[in-house]
């Protein structure tokens, strides 16, 4: 034996070992998590030693779903485990802070004016004083303040704004409630009780995949990550799973060991590529071309050559494939038009909702028949029980829809298809049938027949079809090579493997997508291209299949009660919720910096709608009720209500009619049509749980200039003036629209740094809250391991304090309750979505009046009682009891539960097990005073955590659909109840409910649309089926009926580089994917993550691009364009594709940022280089699934089609 190594047992000589044992000791462990915009939703144990939070480790007690699935634990990542660094760090906001110049002004004003409203007015109405503190924003000079002073300023400025301009000039931004329900909900509840506005986030972050609403009428519904393990063929596209789905990606490697193939489509050799069997290094942004060719192969080989029965049966039952589409004569050829409406046939011309019921050919009888389940069956008493996918027609006769006319019809028509990559038209024959309609004879074909022609699968038809896979016509495997750089053999092989696997496994081929593809201008098309492959192979609604998009923790599992509490509809409503992308585009004046959108987005000649300036499209969408816009009117909505009352309109209907008439007469101005008028500016901006001014501020430098009025690095020219028609152009752009910016934060991030007031909030480990995600099917808590440190308070408590302050001082401003008029867009999942079968514009079209809720936005009247704001905040209002709860057009009663809670004692201390009530003005209400009360109320009222309510909700669903097997899903779980205490003990798996489309009974992994497939519940779309063909008139005009390929925007047209000096520079496509060392901007500024990365937020580039300008690894560089500049270091890596510059989103400009040589000021963050370009087609509304829902629909804040110059930084200067 070697004698040089000592093996020691002797305890005496090892007494020193206590050295490390002592460090490990701790006093308490508390379950919590990180409430940040991350899809992880991981349960953590937080360790407390001597009353100090010391570190965290993952909780590993997730219940096992099923013995055939790998366990979930441990969930957590490098970023999350660095969270404890923040608690006592030098970056922690410990006290309230206020900009010194504002504090001085306020103190002086208070001395001068007794009335606080006059004091605030004296500051903001004086241009000199207003400019003084606006210019100081972000430029140092913070002072520590006391809570009372800052609360007073916030309360006064809000009330002043409501009085002078209207409450809809008070805005709040906080993202992703699912990460911490109540921290979000506290702020939104305050805003909605006040009459203020919540800005959306999922669309603004560009996390919303528009293809989900388009195809499925669903915001997003995806498989939990355990279901990846059920797949046998997984393709990831634009999703760097290992980097961004860190706690879940083990399911991929585990699935590989059961024989699953994993393919990664990514332009870079990503962390996920390391996991892959294949890496397909596609050219960025052109994934749709590759999938189009995959679809070509699938249709050719599996529908024509093989005719796979599973696939054919699937699309017949669950898709719009058999529905008849009208062909419209255009020149020598035909163009695909809208679905043929049932009321176009003599036989059906008088049926209810006939514009919204569609037709198929019955294969057995060859007759045109009306299948149930289309959207027309969703509304109206006479349609009750017919909204289902059973194989019947509306008269209850069995129906066997004919998928294609090719075998039954001898007639064909020439249909023109435009190919955007080559800018070329293909004319192809499709089989048609003549139909006699009330408008004369029409040519129709099926959705599937058009799809064959679109993808160039000829089936022996004549016309410009590719002859074989090597023919370079669209959409052959050879055609796609020029866009993707990927060979035809690879694409053919991918298609075969993908489809054959789906055939053999009945739907276990999966596509996982992410921001990598969702952030392109044509993101919806990229998604639809892959969705088409999944639908054609019967993979949607199947465990192990589906399109699984994981971007943003959007899944508010306990949505129904949360909505009432967070949007304060328990007291009144409707809420004012704003589609953020269009709002920022207009209000941060980015619309001023571009001409018509067709300058950079190529569309063929002859468009009816697809032209003009995006701002005008937005104005139209607001008029038509497609999109919300606040402020609503140039006039104060409180004043208008008063005016109506003074004109003798006492009831709500009278007030609404009065307002509608004034609108029709042009006596009320829509704010959106004159956004730069001072009375239409947003005035007070509250930010909490988010980084509204940096991380998510697409066009950050425009924010600095037009919102804040402080220093910016912008050199872009304004060019909108001559193109605007409905939106008024004002020669001088407003500088500094906001009167007050408040940031609620636990760390000094960029938004905090640029705000007027910073309020210290509880860190995640210091508060009680709820957390859920779509990555798994559990809910679990954020738990307070210690009380909030220093002077911090939880978000819930901060907004409670603000509410209290407002109630205290409101009598100075509003001695009495007042009426408020609220505008509202036409809403998804309501009868509004069958209001506008065609596009009309009451402003411009003759004979069209503004009719609220028909031709335009809706009107509502509500009451604001500012003196009772606080009482309402802390009490669950009676609407919950009286109206029940619900979503997606389904409601269930909860009055018994409400009454039970209202009868609980008022005297208890808040605790995680018990309910309490509050009493005021002689009434008792369930308490929401403490976050624990609110958490328990949500758990008790949600069908996903209360089995009885799951049962009731399915009962309501049965009534709606006529299906009789739905309550079975809930029967077994009817006695389940969850409390906050239960969640603290162990993460709890949710119950199956009709508000989600997955089925989690018996340990089944959640997957989207399982209930639709298993139970024949319709999708919430026009056809009630999955949509391959989109027939909204805008879509037809933009030529997006089909999952078409449109290339990324052209660098030379987008106008990023017009004014930027390009000497000694390389021009690159600017890519900002999710990063390894941050979740958005969080964690990236802490020392752990900085140490493990490069000590800054670097830009990645390929050695060939770096060599062009003499850049070596770790050199300082400027990344610059007309929008702004980033100063950072370069990482030179062969992993990055040539022609691109990558900055992982999202840097803080607070950490290690030098001055720019070119622009002379401090370098910015990644959004200094972006400017938002909206796709106007996505504004469509009032039409089936194209109807507004908060974070559900609208244009998204795309940012990938951006271009930059990279140059070497000549002089490194810090001050």
């Amino acid at each position: 034996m070697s004698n040089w190594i000592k093996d020691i047992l002797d305890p005496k000589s090892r007494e020193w070992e206590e050295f490390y044992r002592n460090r490990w000791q701790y006093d308490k462990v508390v379950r919590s998590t990180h409430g940040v915009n991350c899809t992880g939703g991981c349960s953590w144990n937080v360790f407390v030693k001597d009353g100090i939070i010391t570190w965290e480790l993952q909780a590993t007690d997730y219940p096992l779903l099923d013995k055939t699935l790998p366990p979930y634990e441990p969930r957590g990542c490098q970023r999350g485990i660095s969270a404890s660094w923040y608690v006592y760090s030098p970056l922690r906001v410990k006290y309230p802070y206020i900009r010194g110049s504002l504090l001085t002004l306020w103190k002086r004003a208070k001395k001068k004016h007794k009335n606080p409203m006059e004091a605030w007015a004296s500051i903001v109405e004086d241009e000199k004083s207003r400019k003084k503190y606006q210019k100081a924003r972000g430029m140092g000079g913070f002072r520590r303040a006391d809570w009372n002073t800052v609360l007073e300023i916030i309360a006064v400025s809000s009330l002043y704004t409501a009085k002078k301009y209207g409450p809809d000039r008070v805005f709040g931004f906080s993202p992703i409630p699912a990460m911490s329900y109540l921290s979000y909900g506290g702020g939104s509840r305050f805003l909605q009780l006040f009459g203020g506005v919540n800005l959306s986030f999922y669309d603004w972050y560009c996390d919303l995949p528009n293809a989900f609403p388009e195809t499925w009428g669903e915001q997003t519904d995806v498989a939990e990550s355990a279901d990846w393990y059920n797949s046998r063929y997984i393709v990831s596209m634009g999703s760097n799973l290992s980097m961004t789905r860190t706690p879940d990606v083990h399911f991929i490697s585990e699935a590989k060991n059961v024989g699953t193939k994993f393919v990664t489509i990514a332009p870079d050799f990503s962390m996920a590529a390391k996991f892959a069997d294949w890496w397909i290094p596609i050219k960025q942004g052109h994934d749709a071309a590759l999938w189009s060719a995959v679809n070509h192969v699938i249709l050719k080989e599996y529908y024509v050559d093989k005719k796979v029965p599973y696939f054919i049966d699937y699309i017949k039952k669950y898709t719009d494939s058999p529905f008849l589409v009208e062909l419209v004569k255009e020149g020598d050829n035909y163009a695909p038009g809208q679905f043929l409406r049932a009321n176009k046939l003599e036989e059906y011309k008088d049926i209810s909702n006939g514009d919204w019921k569609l037709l198929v050919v019955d294969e057995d009888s060859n007759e045109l028949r009306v299948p149930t389940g289309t959207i027309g069956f969703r509304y109206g008493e006479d349609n009750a029980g017919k909204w289902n996918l059973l194989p019947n027609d509306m008269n209850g006769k069995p129906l066997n829809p004919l998928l294609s006319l090719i075998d039954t019809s001898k007639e064909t028509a020439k249909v023109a298809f435009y190919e955007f990559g080559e800018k070329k038209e293909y004319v192809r024959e499709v089989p048609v049938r003549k139909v006699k309609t009330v408008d004369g004879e029409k040519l129709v074909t099926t959705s599937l027949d058009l799809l064959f022609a679109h993808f160039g699968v000829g089936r022996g038809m004549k016309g410009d079809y590719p002859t074989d896979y090597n023919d370079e016509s669209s959409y052959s495997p050879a055609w796609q090579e020029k866009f993707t750089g990927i060979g035809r053999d690879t694409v053919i092989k991918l298609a075969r493997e993908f489809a054959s696997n789906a055939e053999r496994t009945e739907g276990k081929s999966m596509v996982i997508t992410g921001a990598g593809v969702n952030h392109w201008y044509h993101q919806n098309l990229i998604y639809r291209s892959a969705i088409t492959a999944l639908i054609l192979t019967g993979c949607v609604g199947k465990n192990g299949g589906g399109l699984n998009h994981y971007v943003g923790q959007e899944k508010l599992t306990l949505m129904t009660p949360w909505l009432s509490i967070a949007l304060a509809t328990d007291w009144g409503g409707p809420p004012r919720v704003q589609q953020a992308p269009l709002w920022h585009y207009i209000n941060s004046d980015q619309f001023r910096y571009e001409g018509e959108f067709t300058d950079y987005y190529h569309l063929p000649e002859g468009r009816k709608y697809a032209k003009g300036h995006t701002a005008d499209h937005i104005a139209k969408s607001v008029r038509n009720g497609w999109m919300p816009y606040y402020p609503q009117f140039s006039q104060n909505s409180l004043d208008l209500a008063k005016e109506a009352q003074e004109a003798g309109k006492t009831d709500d209907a009278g007030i609404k009619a009065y307002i509608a008439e004034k609108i029709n007469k042009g006596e009320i101005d829509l704010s959106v049509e004159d956004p730069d008028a001072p009375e239409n500016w947003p005035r007070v901006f509250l930010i909490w749980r988010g980084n509204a001014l940096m991380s998510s501020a697409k066009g950050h430098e425009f924010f600095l200039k037009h919102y804040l009025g402080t220093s910016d690095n912008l050199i872009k020219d304004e060019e909108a003036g001559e193109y605007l028609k409905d939106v008024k152009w004002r020669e001088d752009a407003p500088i500094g629209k906001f009167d007050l910016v408040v940031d609620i934060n636990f760390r000094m991030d960029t938004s905090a740094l640029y705000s007027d007031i910073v309020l210290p909030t509880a860190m995640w480990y210091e508060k009680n809250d709820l957390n859920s995600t779509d990555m798994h099917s559990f809910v679990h808590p954020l738990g307070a391991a210690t009380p909030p440190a220093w002077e911090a308070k939880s978000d819930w408590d901060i907004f409670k304090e603000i509410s209290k302050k407002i109630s205290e001082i409101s009598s100075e401003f509003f001695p009495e309750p007042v009426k408020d008029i609220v505008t509202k867009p036409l809403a998804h999942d309501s009868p509004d979505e069958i209001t506008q079968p065609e596009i009309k514009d009451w402003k411009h079209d003759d004979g069209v009046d503004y009719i609220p809720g028909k031709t335009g936005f809706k009107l509502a009247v509500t009451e604001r009682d500012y003196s009772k704001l606080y009482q309402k905040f802390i009490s669950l209002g009676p609407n919950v009891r009286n109206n029940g709860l619900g979503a997606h057009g389904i409601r269930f009663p909860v009055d018994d539960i409400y009454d039970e809670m209202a009868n609980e004692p008022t005297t208890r201390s808040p605790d995680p097990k018990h309910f309490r009530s509050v009493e005021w003005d002689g009434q008792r209400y369930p308490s929401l005073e403490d976050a624990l009360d609110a958490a328990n109320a949500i758990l008790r009222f949600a069908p996903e955590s209360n089995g009885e309510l799951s049962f009731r909700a399915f009962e309501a669903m049965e009534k709606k659909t006529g299906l009789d097997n739905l309550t079975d899903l809930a029967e077994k779980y009817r006695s389940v109840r969850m409390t906050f205490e239960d969640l603290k003990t162990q993460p709890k798996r949710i119950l199956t409910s009709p508000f989600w489309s997955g089925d989690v009974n018996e340990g089944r992994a959640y997957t989207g649309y399982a209930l639709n497939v298993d139970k024949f519940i319709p999708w919430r779309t026009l056809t009630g089926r999955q949509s391959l063909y989109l027939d909204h008139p805008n879509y037809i005009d933009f030529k997006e009926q089909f999952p078409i390929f449109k290339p990324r925007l052209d660098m030379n047209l987008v106008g990023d580089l017009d004014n930027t000096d390009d000497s000694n520079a390389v021009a690159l496509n600017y890519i900002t994917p999710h990063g390894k060392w941050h979740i958005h901007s969080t964690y990236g500024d802490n020392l752990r993550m900085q140490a493990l990365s490069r000590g800054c937020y670097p830009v990645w580039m390929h050695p060939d691009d770096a060599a062009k300008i003499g850049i070596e690894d770790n050199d300082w560089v400027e990344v610059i364009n007309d929008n702004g500049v980033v100063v950072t270091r370069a990482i030179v890596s062969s992993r990055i594709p040539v022609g691109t510059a990558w900055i992982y989103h999202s840097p803080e400009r607070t950490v290690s940022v030098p001055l720019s040589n070119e622009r002379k000021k401090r370098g910015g963050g990644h959004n200094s280089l972006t400017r938002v370009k909206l796709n106007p087609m996505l504004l469509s509304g009032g039409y089936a699934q194209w109807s507004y829902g908060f974070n559900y629909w609208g244009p998204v804040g795309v940012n990938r089609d951006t271009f930059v110059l990279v140059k070497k930084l000549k002089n490194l200067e810090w001050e």
Partner: protein
Amino acid sequence: MDIRAQVAMTFHLDKCIGCHTCSVSCKNIWTDRKGVEYAWFNNVETKPGTGYPHKWEDQEKYKGGWKKSGDKIILRANGKFTQLGKNIFGNPHLPTMDDYYEPWTYDYENLFTAPPSKNQPTARPISLVTGDYIDIKSGPSWDDDLSGSEIYAKNDINLEGLSEQEKNDLHELERLVYFYLPRICNHCANPTCSAACPQSAIYKRGEDGIVLINQDQCKSWRMCISGCPYKKVYYNWSTGKSEKCLLCYPRLETGQAPACFHSCVGRIRYLGVLLYDADKIVETATTDDADLVEQMRGMIMDPNDPEVVKAAMKNGVDPKLIESAKNSPVYKFFIKWKIALPLHPEFRTLPMLFYVPPLLPVIGKRKDGIYDQVMDDDSDIPQMSQLDKARIPIKYMASLFSAGNEDEITKVYRKLMAVRIFKRAEEIHDIPEDEVEEAMKLGDTNPEEIEAIYQLTSLPTMEERFVIPPLAREMAIEDLESPFTRKNEGGFGRKIKPKRRW
């Protein structure tokens, strides 16, 4: 037979995400203090790459580990006493701060306290060593994900056997590749750190083989640092003592996996006891390179063999611990299935951490700017990773894990691939039977073994991954203090700082 117990480890690299959660969990608990800011007991490296500290594998530079000298092994740095005699005032083979990195923080306070100024305040980096503003030039995962690939990945010492062309190809689209290598102390059976210590401050714990540096005894010679070929010992410049990974013994002693194992989100880590025959250490450590892995396997004894159990009992190994050795996942990976391998066995420290090598995507070809996968056929059967189309040369993997023995690596890959092929065919029946048979033959495996490998790779619970031996703390301390007394009195007292800080 001199049977001893060793808590050993397996890292399944095919499952490694490269997330560094392991590194942070360790940092939070053990090295978040003055003197060890730069120390990462656990770090994760991108391969190809030069790692942390820079080029640690280059023993020409650092002179770590053992070298074979005839039928003996000697410390590469020529033994502690020679070394001491020659370099009493300095150790020339220590990594410098440049080889690690100069630890830093930021002037975060400036964001709160900056006076009104022309420009937005920023938090500049500050050296944690000098307190001055610093220009950051390196860090503990500086070449992560091929950062600076021209400088780092290209200079990976394991590429030495490759031609220039082959090396360059690894940076072209067709072959571009990387994977992750998480590293902690290997808790070697034949550790050079311990052998090199003039103070005899480094020892292996008798009950579990954990290698520790006695913080009372260490006198800052730092021979352990140069001695360890893995550079997993760090000098605490504040306390003047060396420190290293302690395999979280306070957690192990309480039945919990080490923090880096617990927090491993890829679920790549396994832990369990091996019984080894210490009599075989010399013979094993002096074997020729090509046979090192096989010899190491020979040193590990079968816990089900009654002779081994008898010998272990004779040596005082706790019976409960022997029982736990029977369930050791590490025994399965390294000995039974032979799909895990030691890192750089040619350093001859007999590391007790074994790696399952990663599967990687197949190579491509490019013609006229068009990229295609290299495929065998145009069938519709999913083709998975293939050995003959591996993006990374087998030679490279052999340099890392088998002292150059390519056959050892090949065998591992063949078996890993056989598992996937068999499991797919079993469920989906889309792979022809003869191909499945052929894969099993090549992989030298059978359905039972495949099922076992699959179960432990895909479906394991924490308890199956970490078979933590009972460490009988009551017996370990009772010579010193009655456990009853410890129960009643443990923890009382005050925290009194030693003369030198910790």
